[in-house]
């Protein structure tokens, strides 16, 4: 009974060209749009070029100079330095030719704006100050060991920065892509509506025909729900694949888990649609509009349209990020990328499972009624 039911509802959904078209075109067009809008920022971040900086030698500093020498040489150099006087240095900074000015006397750093380059300069000077004593002592007592110490220090900085890039890229662009996947997932709620519209006698003649058959209603609903889940799962896989392999978005080293998160997210969205469909009475258009509004609201609150939204929510109503499916889904990707461990990723998956269960149960409770007052 179930297999037959599932097979044909799946077939009919897959053949629904309009629905499938939307489910596919929507994330693809949006992601291309994002890619075009943010690609400038993005390219700089991944290519990791040496950072241009001006050095003002207001006081000779032998240890610092040798460190600068060693980090501005070679293929993987950290900095491109220009030695100059203060006036000229600040002019370069204003023109944007350099990202920062470093004074040798007290290793003071002056930067203009915030960005990854400025961050690199900052961590470089911070790192230097921390190890300055060690460097000075080495220079005084064991000058022959100085190159080793410098090498290890510059390596440290490079590693820190590269870690940030490969394992986690907490920057605007990639965050938008996470939000985009989350939005596609919650918008699958529209697919989930069919769980109600195709099974309820008071909604469609199709539903009536199923209700009068000897197949229990639960099985009919479950069959449509499972086929919606399946269709959405396929669409989520395609979306992530498109982002990762066609747009070449760097999801880091945990791509399979990104797929898992997307899959669970899609299921969450469909189940949410089931609940919305069962709660909102009236025509398909009404249910559809409700599902779209709810999905877009959640997406908005998770930062899809306004990058900072999630942090604003985090500051004022932090619990909302835990019950907003879009935020939970995008956070799962985010944590997957920035965390070394899996705790927060797994916790988000668990929240999704809970949401799926709650949404599905709510849907069942509101559709289980066996007789209708009016058809």
């Amino acid at each position: 009974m179930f297999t037959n039911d599932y097979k044909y509802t799946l077939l009919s959904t897959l053949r629904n060209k309009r629905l499938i078209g939307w489910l596919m075109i929507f994330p693809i067009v949006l992601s291309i749009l994002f890619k075009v809008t943010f690609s400038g920022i993005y390219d700089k971040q991944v290519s990791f070029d040496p950072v241009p900086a001006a050095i003002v030698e207001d006081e000779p500093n032998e240890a610092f100079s040798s460190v600068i020498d060693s980090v501005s040489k070679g293929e993987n150099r950290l900095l491109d330095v220009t030695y100059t006087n203060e006036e000229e240095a600040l002019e370069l900074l204003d023109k944007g030719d350099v990202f920062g000015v470093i004074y040798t006397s007290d290793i003071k750093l002056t930067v203009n704006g915030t960005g990854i380059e400025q961050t690199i300069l900052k961590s470089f000077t911070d790192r230097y100050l921390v190890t300055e004593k060690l460097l000075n002592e080495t220079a005084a007592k064991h000058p022959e060991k100085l190159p080793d110490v410098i090498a290890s220090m510059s390596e440290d900085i490079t590693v820190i920065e590269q870690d940030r890039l490969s394992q986690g890229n907490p920057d605007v662009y990639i965050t938008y892509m996470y939000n985009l996947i989350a939005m596609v997932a919650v918008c699958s709620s529209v697919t989930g509506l069919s769980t109600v519209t195709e099974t309820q006698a008071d909604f469609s003649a199709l539903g009536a025909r199923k209700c009068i058959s000897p197949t229990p209603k639960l099985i009919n609903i479950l069959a449509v729900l499972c086929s919606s889940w399946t269709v959405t799962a396929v669409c989520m896989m395609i979306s992530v694949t498109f982002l990762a392999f066609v747009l070449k978005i760097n999801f880091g080293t945990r791509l399979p888990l990104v797929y898992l998160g997307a899959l669970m997210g899609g299921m969450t969205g469909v189940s949410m649609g089931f609940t919305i469909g069962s709660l909102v009475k009236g025509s398909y258009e009404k249910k559809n509009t409700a599902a779209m509004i709810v999905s877009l609201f959640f997406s908005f609150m998770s930062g899809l349209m306004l990058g900072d939204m999630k942090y604003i929510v985090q500051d004022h109503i932090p619990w909302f990020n835990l019950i907003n499916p879009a935020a939970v889904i995008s956070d799962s990707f985010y944590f997957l990328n920035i965390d070394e461990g899996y705790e927060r990723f797994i916790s988000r998956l668990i929240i999704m499972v809970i949401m799926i269960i709650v949404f599905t149960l709510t849907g069942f409770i509101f559709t289980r009624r066996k007789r209708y007052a009016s058809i």
Partner: protein
Amino acid sequence: MEQTVVKIENLVKRYNDLIALDHLDLTIKEGEVYGLLGPNGSGKTTTMNCLLSLLTFDKGNIEIFGKPMSPTAYDIKKDIGVIMQNVAVYDELTVRENIDYFCGLYIRDKQERRRCVDEAIEFVGLEDFTKFYPKKLSGGLLRRLNIACGIAHKPKLILLDEPTVAVDPQSRNKILEGILQLNKNGATIIYTSHYMEEVEQICTRIAIMDKGRKIAEGTKDELKHMVKNTDTITVEMNDLPDSVLGQLKEMPHVYSVTYEDGKLVAACSGGKHNLIRILEVLQKNDLSFGRVYSEQPTLNDVFLEITGKALRDKED
């Protein structure tokens, strides 16, 4: 003794203030082709939906195959086939897939199901269209698909709710023949319609409904007897002065006279001499007339007699 297949007792169904079914009683025996005849809005569909446990009702008792009907009475449901008023098929499934899908809600065994689906396709004559999507079918073929979806599992009780609405005459005849064939194969049929000709043509017993009540029940002959010896006499003539029309109206036994489009129509009751006496009046006034014929009462006359209004809306 024939078994009772459907028993509806004292059924009351309200939609808010509107009483859609008003203490309705129906008893349908095995092997009958039972007609529910009534104008639009008389409660036929509501009766069907209550019978199928789709609707809640305010009062009453419904038994099918001698057992109380409920939404979870799956052993009853498996033997019922329904052809809804609205076509209910998946647009994205082909003719064959649709029939197989709905048949699958009743029959699990794959081989048995394939046989049933084949037979249903043959029965409605859709062999050449098995790979068509519903959108590509004409109205009549779509109705036939709708029927095939409802009867593929070989139900013992078949409910048809206005299956011939908006169907061309050829498809309509095919559908009516099919219904009789299903009945011959052993199924009990409940057929609702507001077309009295169809009901007269195929039903063995008829209930006439109006405003949620059963106002008459019986075979078509029994029903016609209810309107005593009513005759409708039609006389074709070119001219009829109002004075003569007045004279005709005053005749005993004649209760309605109209003259329209060159036709004099007089509804009379009682006696065989009505025709002769009408013609006498016409001759006395020196009026010439053409064809004259007299008709037996129709179910419309029955309805008219009981409710004082015509069964069908003018536009039908």
